[in-house]
Structures are given as structure tokens and as C-alpha cells.
């Protein structure tokens, strides 16, 4: 398995993040290797968002180390992290629905044909590449001029993922990409994750849905109250154990008993 062969692309050691008196992260360790899908699980308020924002360069850790390809690294902005190859797809901030797929895909990195001082956007190249990249992800667009608003939630996530992959992401952080999706669309996004992983990119998949995580994950790290409770390999942990780690224990067992099944 590739995850044992390669060195981590990003390694985060004992990350702490304090916001004034609030300790959001209190010693989190996590790493991501090429070609694996590492799931980060945790209930609401566990610190998942703070943690990935630290990884994506939005927050600076109060304490702890970030190693990028073996070297200590400090990102000053999301732009820095992006340029190093860490791309983040935020659940609701990925796309602008009023704009076309092509305009969204190339936003901020438009292909340019210079005529004197004017930087014209090379729409032919832009459209062709967009259609091709979307086809690779299994989505055939009606037209590259189609507004993103006309796509389904799963397709929007896929545009964002295809964009990150095309622009050379080494690590792709997906912030709850499946939480607002239906069954079919979730399956599509999970299969996209699989395609991305096979291309040798490390995927950090944030979710609070154990089933979604187990469907594609190679490793699973559970975050609870700002701390990592450990990392498990695929096949070493059952859904019930994972669920229990996430919810943090006893009352969940009682609750599930009264509801008659795994939540």
C-alpha cells in the first residue's frame, strides 16, 4: 500500500491553537501521504474546522510544528499554502453560482492572451480544459458557459475538486463535502475522491459521517474536544468503535440503545 511507502507530504505535530482564553486545539497530530485518503472525524465543535484552517494557512498555530515535505513550514496566508500545493475545498465557499463553470474554474488564475497592455482571457483554452477536466471526473457538462448555479451540489463540489487537482494540488482538503448531499450525489463525490487519490494526491476528508469515511478512507483520525484520540488503519476499526470515539463515549451508547440502532 502506497501509504506505507511514501513520506508524509504534510505532517502536523502537537498543534495547539488558542483564541484568547479558548483552547480550540490542544495537541493535534496528523499527517497525510501521497495517494491516500486520510479521514478526519469529529463531532461538531471538536475542532475540525480550526484544524484544517491551520493546515490551509488561515490560522497560525499557537504551538506545534508543521512540516511540509519534511521541512518546517509556516504559512502566512491561504495563498501561501495554495502555492505550496495545499488546496482546500470549502463546503459553501467553493463556487460562485452566478458565474459559468469556466469562469469559476479559472477564477484567479485565468489563462491570458496579451494584446498590448490588455490581458484578454483565452476562452478557447479555458473552455476546452474545463470540459476535459470535468469529463475526467465523470461529469459531462452541457456547455462550459453553463452557470454553476444550474449544477447539483455534488457536481459543484466536483468542479471545485477538479479545479484544485488541475492546478497541481499535492494535498486536497475537503471540508465536509458530503454533508449537504443526497445519497446518489454523495456516491459521486466519494468516487471522485477515489479518482483523486489514485492520481497520487493526498486527500484529507473531513466528515462526521462514519459510513462516508469508511467507504473511501485509508486511515482515520478522530478529533474530540481539541485533541486527537488516535489514528487507525483501514480494517483495524469497526464503524461502531469509530462512532463511539467520535461521540466520546457512554451517553451515546445509551442514546443508541433507546433509538434502536447506530446513529
Amino acid at each position, binding site marked *: 500500500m502506497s501509504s506505507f511507502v511514501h513520506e508524509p507530504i504534510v505532517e502536523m505535530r502537537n498543534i495547539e491553537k488558542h483564541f484568547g482564553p479558548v483552547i480550540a486545539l490542544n495537541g493535534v497530530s496528523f499527517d497525510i501521504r501521497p495517494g491516500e485518503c486520510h479521514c478526519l472525524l469529529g463531532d461538531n465543535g471538536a475542532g475540525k474546522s480550526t484544524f484544517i484552517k491551520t493546515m490551509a494557512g488561515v490560522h497560525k498555530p499557537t504551538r506545534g510544528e508543521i512540516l511540509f515535505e519534511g521541512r518546517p513550514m509556516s504559512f502566512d496566508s491561504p495563498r501561501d499554502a495554495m502555492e505550496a500545493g495545499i488546496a482546500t475545498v470549502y463546503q459553501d465557499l467553493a463556487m*460562485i*453560482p452566478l458565474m459559468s463553470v469556466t469562469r469559476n474554474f479559472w477564477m484567479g488564475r485565468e489563462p491570458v492572451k496579451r494584446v498590448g497592455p490588455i490581458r484578454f482571457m483565452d476562452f478557447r483554452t479555458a473552455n476546452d480544459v474545463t470540459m476535459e477536466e470535468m469529463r475526467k471526473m465523470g461529469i459531462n457538462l452541457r456547455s462550459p458557459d453553463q452557470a454553476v448555479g444550474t449544477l447539483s451540489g455534488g457536481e459543484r463540489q466536483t468542479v471545485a475538486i477538479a479545479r484544485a487537482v488541475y492546478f497541481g494540488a499535492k494535498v486536497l482538503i475537503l471540508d465536509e463535502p458530503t454533508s449537504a448531499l443526497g445519497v446518489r450525489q454523495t456516491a459521486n463525490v466519494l468516487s471522485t475522491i477515489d479518482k483523486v487519490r489514485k492520481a497520487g494526491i493526498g486527500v484529507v476528508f473531513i466528515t462526521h459521517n462514519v459510513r462516508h469515511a469508511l467507504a473511501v478512507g485509508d486511515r482515520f483520525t478522530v478529533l474530540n474536544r481539541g485533541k486527537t484520540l488516535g489514528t487507525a488503519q483501514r480494517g483495524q476499526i469497526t464503524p461502531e468503535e469509530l462512532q463511539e470515539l467520535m461521540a466520546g463515549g457512554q451517553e451515546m451508547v445509551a442514546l443508541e440503545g433507546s433509538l434502536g440502532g447506530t446513529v
Partner: protein
Amino acid sequence: MSSMGAAADERVKETSNLRKALIRPELGAIVGTVAVFAFFIVFAGDSGMFNAQGVLNWSTVSAQFVIIAVGACMLMIAGEFDLSVGSMIGFAGMSIAIISVTLGWPVWVAILLTFVLCIAIGALNGLIVVRTGLPSFIVTLAFLFILRGFTIFFPQLIERRTIIGGVSERAAGDWLAPVFGGKVGGFFFDWLASMDMIAVFERGTRAGEPIVNGIPMLIIWALGLMIVAHVVLTRTQFGNWIFAAGGDAQAARYVGVPVNRVKIQMFMFTAFCACVFATCQVMEFGSAGADRGLLKEFEAIIAVVIGGALLTGGYGSVIGAALGALIFGVVQQGLFFAGVESSLFRVFLGVILLFAVILNTYIRRIITGER
């Protein structure tokens, strides 16, 4: 998966070419323009509204609206408003008059200094909006009062009146003034007159000369600004940033679009357009008045909205805004030609605004998948 792959979604209907041609952001404005012209051809067709002089009359008025609508359109797509446009027009005109007439400096210096001043105020508007995060509605409303106040205060302080004339005399022989106040294509109209295709003066000192003796630079500015803005918006990298800044500023920032810079530059462009309007007006009238440009900001915004732009930004069309401005100009002047009470202008305008916006909203939902 079927043999046709993911393309075959049986729930997506094939769209016809006619439908594709019709489903565009400008449709509301196009329909409105056709309706307005049809109306006046029927009710004022023989009133002189469509001879050379009449056409020039409503095109000049429409061109004024186009100039400020283009600026307002670009800014609105970038997600902001400028309510200080009208006051800026009065302010810029007064600035030119005071610098050239009262101070006695050359007119070209007055024009250039005024442009620098107005664009700087536009930049200040933008800077305050992006730094404080306040709605541009409020910030520019403040400048609506501030600029209008100065426009009334300074001429009273300096000249003890609110209208400063004498700009025409000062502009005679100036190299820059004709760029705003001049006319082009005079030879063409002479030729048309010699072919008996347009009317000529029958008496007086200009007997034999065509009544319409050139296209005002105002119209050239309107066309030029419209074309440049349209190309920038739809064809360039910067155009994509304008859409992105208005569509979702945060999402745009995440992918490295310099949103604040784009917004500030659009405020500066709006100020530039207001200044072009003011300069043309001062050169035409030969004077500046403290009440010039009143309510122009709303007229610009209405033209832009008739043109299909979304008030909340991220969506719109310069061509649509220009058509909206044309509707404005044609209706305002057309009711005069048709001999209808001019107060009906407002009624007519309100009706058109309502219908165009309803149609636009419907079209936009089809295009963008909004619900």
C-alpha cells in the same frame, strides 16, 4: 452507467437555438427598447422625432444616461453602489468652472485637475467601503451630501452665486475642451445636406448650413465607454475578477482574486464616468450650476437594473445597461415629441422598470439556476 456515459441525463431537455439566443441577461432591455420605439413610431412618427434633428436630440440625452449607466453597471457587478454620482457631476462641473473662470487657469488644466480630483474621491469612497466593511450604500450616501454641500458652498464663498458662467469664452482655442464639447463628422452632414437628405437652415447667418452639423463628442464618449467596458467585462481577466468580486467576495479571495483592489478601481471608474458627463455638460452649456446632476445616481441605477444587472452584484451586462439608458432618453424626449404631459414620463418609466425587472428576474433564474 449507460453507453452514452454521464452525458445522457434524460431529465435535461435539448434547448433550441432560438431559446439560447433569447435567454440572455439583456433580454428585458431589448424587449423594452423595441416596445418603446414601436410606441413612439406609432404615436410620434410624424412629429419630427425620427428626422436627423430629432434623432440627435434623443441620442444626446440617451448618451448622457449611457455614460453614467456604464460606470454604475461595472460597479454594481463588482457588488457595490455609488449614490454620489449625481453630486459628483455637480462637483466636477463646478471644479472646472472655478479653476478655469475664477482662477483663470487654462481650461485643459482645469479639466485634468478635476479628473484627478474626482477619481481620487472615487478611490476614497472605495477605500472607506473595503476598509470599514460598511455598505457602499451608506458610505456613498454620505458623499452625496458632502460633495453637494461643497458644490453649493464654494461658488457662494468665492463668487457669491451658485452658477458660474463664462466657460465657453475661456474654452475657445483650448486643445482639450473640444474632446468633450466638440462635434465630429461635420463634412458628412454637409454632404447629406448637399444631397438634400437632411434639413438646412433657410434664413439667418447660417442659411444653407445643415441644422445638424455633427455628432456631439458626448455620443462618441458614450459609445466608446460602452464598448470598452463591455470588452473588459466579458473578454478579459480583469472582467472575470469584477464578476467574482461581486458574486462572492470571500470565495474570490480564497482563490487569490484581489477583491479590494478591483472594487476600489470600479469606484474610480464610476467617478471617471461622472466626470466625463460633467465635463461634456459644462462645455455644452458654458457654465456650471450647483444643482447639476441631481438624482442622476438613481437614474443610472435604474438604467442598469432595466439592463438586467442584479442589485446584489455578480451579474449584469453593459450592453443591457446602455439599452436601459436608451429607453430612458427616448421616453423622456419622446413624450415631448408626442405632445404628452411630461409628468407622464415618470409613470411610463415606472411601468417599464417594473416589467423589465420581472422579465429579467425570470431570465436570470433560467440562466443561473437560482430558486
